[in-house]
């Protein structure tokens, strides 16, 4: 005979409460992604078709926002020279958590057609964590939209953890940044 003693529901531990909070938050976060209007290289030309009537980005809930404090996604669209990488790192650290990085084009993956230049970095993943890559030079607008949907799927499956990786491996990222750039925040802005 089964016991009729009342078994109270198990009290959730702090991590589980926090996780449930993040789960509800994940539904809102993947359906309303705001990207920072920061166009680093040539692949930025693929953004206007994505935003306007043909491949409407707004039906996914995405939209452009003006400052890093307000934005969720940092879109690295194209190659990054050494000068731009300093600004990108500063901007990435100014954003609020949780934050995601999307690399458009082949240049963030392995340097693309500028892979042997002295002023361009080759692998973005060494300096800031990247969640989604969209390969191509430059990628089709349908690929860009596919990349955004992929990021939303990653958020749903809780694998878009670039910002957690950055916090946990902070020294490793800083070591790579110092090796490539010398110093990230420069003090004489007119003579780099």
């Amino acid at each position: 005979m089964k016991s009729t003693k009342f078994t109270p529901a198990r009290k959730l531990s702090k991590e589980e409460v926090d996780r449930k909070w993040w789960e509800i938050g994940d539904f809102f976060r993947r359906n309303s992604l705001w990207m920072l209007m920061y166009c680093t290289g040539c692949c930025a030309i693929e953004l206007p078709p994505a935003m306007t009537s043909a491949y409407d980005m707004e039906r996914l809930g995405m939209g452009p926002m003006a400052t890093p404090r307000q934005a969720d996604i940092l879109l690295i669209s194209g190659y990054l020279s050494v000068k731009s990488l300093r600004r990108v790192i500063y901007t990435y650290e100014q954003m609020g958590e949780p934050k995601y990085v999307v690399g458009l084009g082949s240049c963030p993956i392995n340097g693309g057609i500028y892979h042997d230049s002295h002023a361009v970095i080759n692998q973005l993943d060494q300096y800031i964590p990247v969640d989604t890559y969209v390969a191509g030079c430059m990628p089709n607008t349908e690929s860009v939209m596919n990349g955004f949907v992929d990021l939303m799927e990653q958020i749903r499956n809780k694998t878009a953890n670039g910002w957690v990786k950055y916090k946990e491996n902070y020294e490793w990222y800083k070591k790579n940044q110092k090796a490539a750039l010398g110093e990230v925040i420069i003090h004489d802005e007119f003579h780099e």
Partner: protein
Amino acid sequence: MLLNILIGFGVAFFGFVLQTSVAGVNRKIIARLQKRYGPKWYQEFLDIFKLLSKRATSHGWIFDFGVIMALGGIIATAMFMPLTNNIVAFAGYDNFFIFVYLIAVGMLGMAMSASGSGNPYASIGVMRALTTMLAYEVPFMVIVLTIIKLTGFSSLQAIAIAQQASGANWFLIALPLGGVVGIICLMGMLGKKPFETYIAPAEIASGPMVEYGGKQLGMLFIMHEITVFIEVSLFVHLFLGGAENIFIFLAKYFAVYTVVNLISNVNGRLKIDQVVKFYYKWPLIMAVTQAIIAIYFGWVI
């Protein structure tokens, strides 16, 4: 008294839900005009709740305190707003001037916290918002002076009931010049193009909102939605005769907001001194002419 406070809080909450839904539906309408699909109708809710769930950055106690004062002031203002002839929290005390000046408390709180972030773009945005306020308030006040003098009341509910009396027309028809001025000043109040100077995302990096993220930005969005609710309801009660029941109120509210949104979507943005020069030319002349005609000659349709 406790029942009144609960009814007031219910009105404020209803206003927030109503305006957020209407704004979402409007985004879809504008998108269909531009031959694309547009977001879901509850997209604005998703935006606000996403913001409330992020971890933000803060620049000190004045940054947080200003946001609390702004949202608190606007909730307090919305609690006085009458919805229909019967739903009003504090009957007889919903004076028109309370709405104008309590919104100013909200704006002052937001301005304090924006300047307290230390970013010059925020101070520039606040300067432009205050200058725009100086521009659109004066013609609007002249028209409201005419309305108050004609009906003899300054309580919103009483003005709405006076327009519903048999033989009386809505003030949009009875004071035609005044109605046009009212619509132009409403566009200035809502911050819609061509008077969107204070946000201006491409020129001053979204003005006062430049350093906000996370819960402060979410609370400011809630404040903006409730402010839009108060201003459009003000227009409905003053010029369109209020509402006898809630469905007529929803219909009039939706019509006003959609018309204003459609007009603003085909306009560009004016510079700030063009805004001041515009409002002090034809709207002021039309408002003064309407006031002289209505008060001293008595020619009301």
